[in-house]
């Protein structure tokens, strides 16, 4: 009814001409985050033409806490608690390579029982993380049940981790020379019970989540990452394996007792969001398998090598990597012979997914953004350190 729009004054309405950056004026720039239900503490600057994303510029750094600088002021033992904070959903996974690196540079032996306990805890944490991630993925695709179910099952595994270490999520359980304390006597039996229950429970996830036509409609064929792009961009973990690359640090460079345990590396060839969500689910079966085998074979004995008050590292550098829940996690540690490290560099999987995300979002639909973003297994706290 006589609605007159002043076309001159509406930004982005005039589709001819270029703006100062040389972009078409029909292209809108959106800022997604840091307060946005789909992004977490992370910002994406997205340029859209209609609803097709022309360019996505990730802007991390909202949780940059300067871990690497803080490491230089603390000695090897004092560094443990704050180094697991970047990823407290998988706190054993992020501490594992640090502990391995300190053991190598300070030449600390590890008792056999401690290695098994570490593997069990690392696998428990992998499941704990992947359940949390699955829940969040579910709720951001509008599937509330998929938030509730993993959250409930996660608590059972957290109970186990709490029983062993005393803390719900921030265990600080791995120390150079073993683990902080032995597991209680009742732990193996309870762990077996919970893990077997959990393995049965996993089957139901397929029925309600992966077979759900709505979930499939939002993920199948969305954000396809080709094999060579995945390798060249440095993708890692489930993202890499969902693109058909069989690469798992537990297999290619076994640490602790992974070479004695029997498990498969899960790969899929599709490389879309669905595959990236499906691979962690299959990997949880393998994790349960590994934990059960390790519980079976765990010898008795001490769990920790006594250390002096201030262990000193040999002069040199060490690069240790493990397969955390999100992928390859590596520490580069330089020592100049002091009790404090000279330089600690965390190479975290989330940071490596940033270029992959930017690559996948280009050309995707704006509505597919949450589906691609969450399938990346990207955790801003970890990426920013």
């Amino acid at each position, binding site marked *: 009814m006589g609605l007159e729009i002043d076309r001159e004054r509406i930004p982005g309405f005039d589709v001819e001409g270029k703006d100062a950056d040389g972009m078409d004026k029909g292209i809108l720039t959106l800022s997604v985050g*840091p*307060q*946005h*239900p789909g992004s*977490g*503490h992370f910002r994406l600057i997205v340029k859209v033409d209609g609803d097709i994303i022309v360019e996505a510029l990730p802007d991390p*750094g*909202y*949780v*940059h*806490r*300067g*871990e690497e*600088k*803080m490491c230089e*002021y603390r000695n090897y033992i004092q560094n443990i*608690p*704050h180094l697991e*904070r*970047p*990823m*407290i*959903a998988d706190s054993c996974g992020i501490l594992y390579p640090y502990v391995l690196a300190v053991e190598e540079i300070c030449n600390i032996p590890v008792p056999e029982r401690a290695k098994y306990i570490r593997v069990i805890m690392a696998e428990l944490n992998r499941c704990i993380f992947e359940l*949390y991630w699955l*829940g*969040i993925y579910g709720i951001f695709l509008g599937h509330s049940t998929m*938030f*509730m179910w993993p*959250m*409930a099952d*996660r*608590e059972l595994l957290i109970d186990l981790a709490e029983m062993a270490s005393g803390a*719900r*999520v*921030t265990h600080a359980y791995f120390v150079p020379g073993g683990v902080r304390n032995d597991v209680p006597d009742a732990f193996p039996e309870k762990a077996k019970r919970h893990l077997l229950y959990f393995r049965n429970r996993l089957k139901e996830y397929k029925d309600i989540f992966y077979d759900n036509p709505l979930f499939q409609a939002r993920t199948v064929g969305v954000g396809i990452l080709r094999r060579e792009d995945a390798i060249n961009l440095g993708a890692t973990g489930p993202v890499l394996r969902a693109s058909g690359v069989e690469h798992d640090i537990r297999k290619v460079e076994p640490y602790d007792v992974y070479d004695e345990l029997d498990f498969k590396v899960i790969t899929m060839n599709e490389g879309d969001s669905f595959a990236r969500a499906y691979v962690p689910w299959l990997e949880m079966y393998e994790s349960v398998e590994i934990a059960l085998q390790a519980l079976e074979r765990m010898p008795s004995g001490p769990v920790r090598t006594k250390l002096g008050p201030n262990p000193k590292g040999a002069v040199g550098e060490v690069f240790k990597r493990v397969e955390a829940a999100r992928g390859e996690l590596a520490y580069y540690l330089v020592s100049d012979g002091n009790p404090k490290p000279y330089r600690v560099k965390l190479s975290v999987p989330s940071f490596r997914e940033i270029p992959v995300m930017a690559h996948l979002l280009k050309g995707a639909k704006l509505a597919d953004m949450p589906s691609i973003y969450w399938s990346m297994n990207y955790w801003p*706290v970890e990426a920013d350190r």
Partner: protein
Amino acid sequence: MLRELLSPKRESSRGALDGERPANFNILVGKLSEVLVKAIDKPLGYAINWGRLWSLWPVHLETACCSLEFGAASGPRYDVERFGIIEAFGSLRQCDLMVIQGTVTRKMAPRVRMIYDQMPEPKYVIAMGACAITGGLYFDSYNVLPGIDGVIPVDVYVPGCPPRPETLIQGCILLQEKIKRTRFR
């Protein structure tokens, strides 16, 4: 005063929209609400506070790793919803609670303030975790604020690194207690 407001001088202001309505209709509503507030303060203040405290809507803003335990608190085992705190919500225009979930860095602080300013009154803030209270483990980091209370006013502090979900629930109950005892505005 009311009579004067109800019979406005039509020629005083002309706009596209106020053809049929009184020109200062909005002022009338504002005044009326003030009158209403004064009238219902004593008897209904308790009732309105009661309504507020059982429907706190937290804004969906994560600042660091404590968001994990916030997520666990809205999960089935802890189920903070039974205490009237509803799951984190995307639109901050409809929220009245802000849970600062962990470390606030120098890059995040202006955004936190911006989000706080955009929330409608009344609004409450819970500082969750040691980092949000004093900087916590990151007391000597170059990029971390020593506590959030220099940026926004805090109602309840929930200590822990990270706080267990039970602690967060206790903090929420403390906040509800506070709202109950505050004079209704």
